[in-house]
């Protein structure tokens, strides 16, 4: 008899089993409902947001993709910002995480906490603080300013991800590599980097999404040419056309695709090591 084997086919049993099951079902419905509704509305034929739609069409997808050029411009800006954010964040996160994990300074616990503190602070507060700095240097409305703002949001999480991989990396592997004749740069490229890869890839994806999904910092910093999220925000405030729903649906499926990709990378790297 194997008692630890989960019974996949039945829900929770026991005296309060029905209650637990009901909560589970409600939670799933609650989480999925908005996605389902938005997806349905995105195929609406109506001229404004309404549920359920009176008819169905691709007109709002067409509008998003080719009708109103400001949507694609916003999308391109978001992609560029997110890609830059991901690259710069990862490049900063790798040495920072390694230093954080390997250093033996006193007060390291505090330093780690400070690094991760932005995770606990409301993005609105970060955005206001950033605005002051970025305005002072005259970077408001520039790509550099926007990316800098997104990096601040993304970096703590990226450091966390890389640090998890770095902690699991046995320093003896690097010692072995160098005793086998690898110079420091070769050790880094052939051993350290590949072994940090799962953390680095996750950090990159999360940084990308952080930038891509951000509204608040973009509200302050994106200037006259909005990011996609900012463009959606403007749309909701001013026009309320179902284009927002189409854009959202595309974003949702993009996000799901990214998360699947992360999961696949994780799994294949676990298999190898």
């Amino acid at each position, binding site marked *: 008899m194997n008692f630890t084997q989960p019974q996949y086919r039945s829900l929770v049993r026991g005296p309060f089993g029905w209650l637990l099951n009901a909560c589970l079902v409600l939670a799933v419905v609650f989480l999925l409902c908005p996605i389902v509704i938005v997806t349905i509305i995105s195929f609406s034929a109506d001229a404004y947001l309404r549920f359920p739609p009176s008819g169905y069409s691709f007109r709002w997808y067409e509008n998003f993709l080719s009708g109103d050029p400001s949507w694609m411009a916003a999308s391109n800006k978001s992609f560029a910002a997110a890609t830059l954010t991901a690259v710069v964040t990862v490049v900063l996160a790798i040495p920072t995480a390694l230093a954080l994990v390997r250093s033996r300074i006193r007060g390291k616990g505090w330093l780690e906490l400070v690094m991760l503190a932005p995770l606990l602070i409301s993005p609105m507060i970060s955005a206001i603080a950033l605005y002051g700095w970025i305005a002072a240097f005259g970077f408001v409305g520039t790509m550099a300013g926007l990316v800098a703002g997104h990096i601040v949001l993304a970096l703590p999480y990226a450091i966390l991800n890389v640090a998890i991989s770095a902690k699991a990396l*046995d320093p*003896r*592997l690097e010692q072995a*590599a160098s005793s*086998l*004749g*690898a110079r*420091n740069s070769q050790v880094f490229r052939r051993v350290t980097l590949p*072994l940090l890869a799962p953390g680095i890839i996750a950090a990159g994806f999360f940084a990308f999404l952080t930038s891509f999904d951000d509204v608040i910092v973009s509200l302050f910093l994106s200037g006259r040419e909005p990011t996609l999220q900012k463009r959606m925000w403007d749309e909701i405030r001013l026009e309320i056309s179902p284009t927002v729903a189409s854009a959202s649906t595309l974003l949702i499926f993009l996000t799901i695709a990214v998360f699947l990709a992360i999961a696949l990378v994780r799994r294949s790297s676990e298999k190898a090591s």
Partner: protein
Amino acid sequence: MTTSHVIELKSLSKTFGNVKAVSDISLDVADGSFTSFIGPSGSGKSTLLSMIAGFDQPTSGTIRLHGKDVSKLPSSERNIGMVFQNYALFPHLSVFENVAFPLRVRNMDARTLTSRVHEALESVGLKGFEARWPKQLSGGQQQRVALARAFVFGPEVLLMDEPLGALDKNLREHMQSEIKALQRRLAVSVIYVTHDQGEALAMSDNVVVMSDGRIQQVGAPAEVYRRPQSKFVAQFLGETNLLEYDLVSRGLSGPIGRLANGAAFVLPDNITDAASGTLSLRPEEIEFADPAESGCRHARIEETVFLGDCMRCRVDYQGLPLWVKLPATVMRSVPRVGQNVALHWNEASLVPLDD
């Protein structure tokens, strides 16, 4: 300057904070020899190896490799092969790529590289395992890959830090003879760390006994075992009886000593003039004689421990407890608890010790 020493350590010390992990070690290791460092946990064996490999910088002292001072060289430029206790195989590389690693970082051409890797894997009995991942190998197989990886690039010396510590007893003994055979075939110098004394005695040309970061004694296994210089070495390598004696006189037939139980006996000639001292007497050097014989030492068996190929008996030698180790041949007839026996030993087997 010609030198037949692969490694020369001069006044080597390493301090961590206020812990002296290694203090003032000087040692020459003969080229092509198999040298074992043995000592209790925390005696500085790994620290010493780390300094030779270049992972740790010595606090003071120098390390020479074939006469060349390498103390300041990074690990990658020392040309030393290292085998770790946990194997330290690269998990993201196949068996082939693990062994190829030292050749790739040296930019060896593909053809030579492939044949060298195959050759190395064949010599550790892992032909056909090239495409496997380290995770898919048993402990013994991983150890062989680590070994192949450490010698494939022709290092000047192989360092091994408790390479067999994680293996079970049978496999360990098997690997011992394989490593030994490989070392002879490659004619490479090996520095081996272990805290298994049997392993050190079985494999080595030279044994270095360490404690508290210092060398206690260096010598061939048989010599260190038979002629320990200190109580520590006598007790650490094998089992022994320590006999405290007072020097009674320096008679014509040699110096005479008296044990705590009052028994007098002839001491070995080479003892010091100190009024008292300690002797080591290995349990296997004591024999049971016929109690009827004259002038023998009477004792009573207090305890017997069956060990398979031999038996250990604790005897009461007129108030002095002694351990006696008997081979299986004697064992069948003799020892029973409570039995009176006579003890016999050769004067030459009494080894005077420093404290």
